[in-house]
């Protein structure tokens, strides 16, 4: 049995890792829950954002937050364009999986073409900075990522809950035809949501560039875990995604501390299986 300090440290790093999962899950959950589109290319977009942050910082010495300031609006536009294609060809929930799967592979190839398959590391002075709380260390950047995820999750929740566009989106997700009959312009709102979802991928990308080592194949590394987060959190539920991110992050990192690291990826998957078998109607 590991010491209490080690356990405490693993809970902290689990919460922080969970914040990053939630950041990635947020956009995915929105487009799946409210647009009925499963966007596999979300991960590829996030990684593209990370590589762009890296490139802008590395080659042009642009600070990461400035880089993010360029990338996030650009990604918003990209998200809108993506939805134009989806709307034009009437892509369904199911075909969206295939189309975005193809898109993810194209983006992966693109990344590999420009940056090769070698590992890239964005060295910044903040990379090793951390705050000390008693015996525990909290890395500053990861804390920032976690706080950003929490802020975005709560803001998105409030937006969906209280604004007209948010309510219209939720109504249209339940029954597009009926919402349309009551004057909801679902198509216009869907473009905005698709843009926001892609913009969130950009935000996640900026943090990924700062926190982790980059390689093109990482697109697929998150997939299982983040989808588990999305499904456990409930589709289209931003706060649920945040909490599910924490749950998965902590359970993974505690597993690593208590058992062997090799078993960590099994945790999210077991929770997911459990949920699907016991509470299928929730998904």
């Amino acid at each position: 049995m590991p010491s209490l300090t080690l356990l405490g440290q693993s809970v902290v790093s689990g919460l922080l890792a969970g914040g990053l999962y939630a950041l990635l899950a947020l956009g995915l959950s929105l487009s799946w829950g409210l647009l009925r589109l499963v966007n596999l290319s979300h991960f590829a977009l996030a990684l593209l954002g990370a590589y762009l942050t890296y490139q802008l910082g590395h080659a042009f010495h642009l600070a990461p937050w400035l880089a993010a300031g360029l990338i996030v609006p650009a990604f918003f536009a990209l998200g809108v364009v993506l939805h134009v294609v989806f709307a034009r060809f009437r892509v369904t929930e199911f075909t969206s999986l295939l189309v975005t799967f193809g898109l993810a592979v194209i983006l992966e190839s693109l990344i590999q073409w420009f940056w090769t398959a070698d590992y890239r590391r964005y060295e910044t002075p903040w990379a090793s900075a951390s705050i000390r709380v008693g015996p525990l260390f909290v890395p500053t950047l990861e804390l920032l990522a976690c706080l950003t995820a929490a802020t975005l999750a709560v803001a998105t929740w409030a937006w969906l809950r209280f604004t007209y566009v948010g309510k219209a989106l939720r109504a249209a997700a339940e029954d597009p035809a009926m919402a349309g009959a009551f004057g909801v312009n679902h198509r216009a709102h869907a473009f905005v949501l698709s843009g926001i979802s892609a913009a969130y991928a950009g935000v996640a990308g900026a943090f990924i560039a700062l926190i982790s080592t980059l390689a093109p194949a990482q697109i697929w590394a998150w997939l299982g875990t983040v989808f588990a987060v999305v499904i456990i959190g409930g589709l289209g539920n931003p706060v649920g995604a945040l909490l599910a991110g924490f749950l998965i992050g902590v359970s993974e990192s505690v597993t690593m501390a208590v058992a062997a690291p090799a078993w960590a990826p099994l945790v999210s998957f077991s929770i997911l299986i459990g949920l699907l078998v016991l509470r299928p109607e929730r998904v």
Partner: protein
Amino acid sequence: MRQAIGLLAAGLILAMLPLVGLPAFYESFLYLVFHWVALATSWSLLSGYAGYFSFGHGAFFGAGMYTVATLTAGLGAPFLAALPVAAVVATLLSVGIGAVVFRVKRLRGELFGLLTLAITFVLATIVLNTRLDGGPGVYLSNVPLPRLVASPTGTFYLLALGLAVLTLAAAYTITSSRLGLGLFAIHDDEDVAEVEGVPTFAYKLVAFALSAGIAGVAGGIHAMYVSYLTVPDTFSITVPLYVVLMSVLGGARHWLGPAVGAALITASLYAFTGGQQAILGRAVVAFVLILIVLLLPEGLVPAVLRRARGRRERAADVAVSPILAAAGARTEAPATLDCRDVWRAFGGIQALRGVSLSVAPGEIVALVGPNGSGKTTLINVISGHHAADRGRVELGAATLTGRPAHEIAGLGVSRTYQIPRPFAHFSALDNVALAATFGSARCAPAEARAEARAWLEFTGLGRRAAALPHELNLHERKFLELARALAGRPRVILLDEVLSGLNPGEIASAVHLIRQIRERGVAILFVEHLMRAVLELSDRVVVLNEGEVIAAGGPREAMRAARVIEVYLGKAHVA
């Protein structure tokens, strides 16, 4: 049949090639083609036919690769002895997953896809961190390769050819059998398939197991072919991406479609080899996938065949003669349907509160009541779509409650849906033939088609046999529901508002039909709002309100009961 002989002949001729001395380059190229033919075709057995898209084919392929690697390089077993084990390991893996996942009733297709993809990564993690691999990869270069012919490339060629021919033969057999028919029905509407008598759980599991087993063997052979395995290469996204693409390109619902797609893609990928070109090649393949999904959703082979067939069938459309005498000649022994104290709640809503009723053979019982009174719920409970919370439903000596819907259909219970739910990709004839195959009639496929023709004639749809459901109007679709219900040779028919939305002429012919069905000794329970038809047709009427029987008896008496008038018209009208 002609297709099966063609397949066998092609396999034999191709098997001769190494003997006449084909250059090693071509043998290697063709090895890859057959390798992908086997993988893509095996993928389509579940994912193409039943529509449960798996992104986890790489997991079964990888399981096969590492089984062979562990047994041969690790434990010194001979290669050919390790191959069947690879199949067994992959099959067991899929059965384990399927047994858990397919039990979940509401698991939608896209969740299945994500789940299988996640499984691939989990499996990769386990292999990477255990002694199966451990990180550095596994070499098979010291494992002796059995010599089927002189050259090693020729041996691989023959192994892959054999597997591809076997896989295609399996695909062909399945598509023309009950299993295939059932899987196609699951693709279109799984709930209805189950109610028509398709054992959906078992069929999905069998298809999944077969699909995974073949992928395991393909992986086992490929492990020897590449002779050096690493986890990132084995469990990469390549296998799931390519099998999906090949099948979608060729047509995942046709037995030959994935093979055609595999040949085309493998050939075009051969143009991009090595370094930067391989990256470009993958991007191009992914782009083609997107274009096909958007522009040609059904795939190449079905698109070509449909064009060719369209011409032939228009010429042959007239030669249908009614064989009514044959239809229903083998009616099952009549039996009484008995519901005793049936309860069912949905969350807090008590939809049925102790409903009891019985329908004797040759009797027509009308089930009436205001909207939301539990009429359709009762039909769903009898047909096994919903389980009863309490109470029993019996048919003759058999108890229906607690059985899965397909067994209930097999015992002779058929139903129609208020909003017709035909299988969208089945012609009218095939829709009815499916019911004849899986209902209590249990016809062989050829017999079922003859039977189906007769029932289409009976319901006046004989000339629409080749039409797809979306080409039929509402009245025709309602009658198609009726023909489908009859083709199962039921002892009980549950009719859920068959008359609603029909015009007076159509109603008259439907009423006439229902009378004829009764003549055959079938027990009929029909839900209807149309009072004229209720009074005209029914022997007895059962009135439901808020899940309770409030009146029962002869049609005129039941409808005049004070409670009934109160429920329909309010208290003031009770005089």
